[in-house]
């Protein structure tokens, strides 16, 4: 994945930031206008702190994190007159501080042939699309990429990934619907090894974290590919949907427990959901945030950046 995403001023970066901000601003313009509305230059008191807290709650930070951050910001300025932009900037700084340590792009290890990445998550979160986008970036960066269609359950999941293969030039390994996902992953890894592929991305079926049998199936995939390479998978990426609320905690907790998640991708940040739950997740789990999805196209994946994300979250710029 490229470090800087504005290559030769093709406007991609502006495009993304604008889209992200647009989405965030749109939210602030609707049901949730708390920060801008309440903070017309005023004295910080307990009521003001509560309102800050509520603003953060509306961005899905969750009650505990929202209260903590709001209090931190409020206490430092208690009884002082504060302008809205000042308080927003302070909030953004505080949130960026929490997010900075987890902002880590996904970089495959060139020494591994292949670097095996297992992509998992709940249903419909954007796994297959993210796999496609990731493949595009890796190929553009000069890697060879193979995709394993390990979602053998959902209707036309294989065909969906195959189209992503055609779009990006990645090789797709697939079998028939209903086949064993672990067996397919095994075959794909065998082939990727033989062909000296740089990165193998395994797209798995969506599964809710409270489904014991489906989580066991994911563990089985890992067990089986370890028969070939006992260090695989080298990364296990959990894909989260930005519209998700507090259930993200349960998702990260369970997936991490079951398959040792190594990093996160958050999709659909081009909507009005602000994905604030990642702030709480960063505090609690400290898992790397590799990238964000900002659209349905092959180019709509960007590295996660703490500062713009935080500023967008509080409605700045």
């Amino acid at each position: 994945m490229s470090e800087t995403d504005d290559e030769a001023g093709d406007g991609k970066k502006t495009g993304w930031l604008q889209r992200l901000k647009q989405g965030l601003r749109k939210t602030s313009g609707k049901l949730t206008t708390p920060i801008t509305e309440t903070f017309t230059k005023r004295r910080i008191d307990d009521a003001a702190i509560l309102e800050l807290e509520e603003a953060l709650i509306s961005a899905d930070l969750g009650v505990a994190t929202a209260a903590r951050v709001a209090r931190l910001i409020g206490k430092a300025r208690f009884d002082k007159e504060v302008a809205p932009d000042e308080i927003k900037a302070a909030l953004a700084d505080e949130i960026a501080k929490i997010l900075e340590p987890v902002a880590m792009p996904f970089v495959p290890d060139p020494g591994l042939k292949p670097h095996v990445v297992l992509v998992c998550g709940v249903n419909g979160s954007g796994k297959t699309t993210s796999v496609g986008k990731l493949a595009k970036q890796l190929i553009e960066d000069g890697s060879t990429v193979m995709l394993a269609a390990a979602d053998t359950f959902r209707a036309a999941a294989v065909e969906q990934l195959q189209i992503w293969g055609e779009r990006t030039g990645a090789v797709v390994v697939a079998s028939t619907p209903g086949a064993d996902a672990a067996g397919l992953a095994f075959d794909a890894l065998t082939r990727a090894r033989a062909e000296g592929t740089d990165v193998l991305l395994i797209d798995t079926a969506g599964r809710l974290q409270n489904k014991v049998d489906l989580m066991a199936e994911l563990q089985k995939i890992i067990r089986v590919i370890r028969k070939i390479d006992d260090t695989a998978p080298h990364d296990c990426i959990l894909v989260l949907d930005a519209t998700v609320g507090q259930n993200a905690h349960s998702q990260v907790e369970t997936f991490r427990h079951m398959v040792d998640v190594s990093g996160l991708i958050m999709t659909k940040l081009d909507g009005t959901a602000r994905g604030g739950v990642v702030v709480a997740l960063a505090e609690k789990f400290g898992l790397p945030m590799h990238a964000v999805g900002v659209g349905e196209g092959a180019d709509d994946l960007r590295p996660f950046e703490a500062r713009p994300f935080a500023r967008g979250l509080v409605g700045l710029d």
Partner: protein
Amino acid sequence: MGRRQSASFAHWRIFVWFFETGKDKDMFDSLTSKLGDIFDGLTRRGALSAADVEAALREVRVALLEADVALAVVKDFIAQVQERAVGEDVLRSVTPGQMVIKIVHDHLVEMLGGDDESAAIDGVGINLAGTAPVAVLMVGLQGSGKTTTSAKLALRIKKRAKMKVLMASLDVYRPAAQQQLAVLGQQTDVATLPVIMGEQPLAIAKRAMDTGAKEGFDVVVLDTAGRLHIDQELMDEVAAVSQATNPIETLLVTDAMTGQDAANIAKEFNDKIGVTGIVLTRVDGDARGGAALSMRAVSGCPIKLMGVGEKVDALETFQARRIAGRILGQGDIVGLVEKAAETIDQEDAEKLAKKMMKGDFTLEDMATQLKQLRGMGDVGGLMGMIPGIGKMKKQMAGANIDDKMLARQQAILSSMTAQERARPKLLNGSRRKRIASGSGTSVPEVNRLLKQFKQMGQMMKKMGKMGKKGLMGMGGGLPPGMMPPGMPPGR
């Protein structure tokens, strides 16, 4: 409510006790959810002041926010309940605490759409009256479950209303979307409109309606591409489809895991294209589902159906009570009871329950109980359904209350002789030592199991004395607040 429920309900309670007696003191305290604690406090005090209501509602506020109910909706809810609760009949009622619980719960049920949909439970759950073919338009954000729900709904209409259904995919954007619907059509044996490459959504919709009319279909289900409510172009596109097909139902399909944004989503879709009903998907997950309340409150659209799995038959009529219990953090009690009813052999269960209530509870029975418990699935999953336990998973793991602990307990029980299991009094120090080494555990662990056994026996006896009323009602072993009064343990 027959024998079926009572037996499985007994199991549900036993299950709760099992954990409560088996855990450390600290954990015992924290196991009751915060909400449960507050309600418990109110119940015990027996008298209720306006301040009490306020204190309780502060906790309700947190519970609702943690359940992802949108902030604005939470505020309204609290204000409304406050108005209702701080009133004469509350203060004069015999058990004021229970009254507040009931008001919170009832108000939530009411806001979610009330309780009288039971009549429609066997029906399709949506409006289909009109000149054939009627169109049903499925809309929503990306990945919310529209295509899957389209197939589920078509199957439901076919089975329940015995109507002829045609499905058409208007999703020309997502890779393999049209094929996905075609495959689902084959799986459900529902006709799908043949795909013409390059045809645009509006044209597909019109052709679907024409085909529906020509070929004698009663219903045409139109599956659309996922779209953001702020994507003007795509919102215009679906508005045009709506204009052209005049759908009898426009169903907004939304994920039960959705956070605060659910309110925006429902409002925007409703404002822009007119939603007639909401389908809540992934109710089979462990999300608290506050999105349901947000959407309902903001858009006024009824929630009609809920998706409870990935398979094509996993679609149910929306049940306000069930979701209300979840939102309040009471766990999916109904779901747990159902699960128990599914897995446990009813006759055995009833026999055992009877035996227990008479007080003849032996270690042999405990072993059977344990086996059934483990047969119900992963403890973690089950615990997710128990009120107040969801949040405690980490501590549970710390205290080793998990499958491993149950496995160790099973090992202890099977290291005993049949005689010992029938007469626990035989278990002196040296026998306990033998059992510990035989099961690969320790004497303190054996002691703890025996203590737990004793406590279980005592509780069973108590329950037996209370008889059927105690078994079915609120009293006894169930921590207060875990189940609102009047909530039946089964459907």
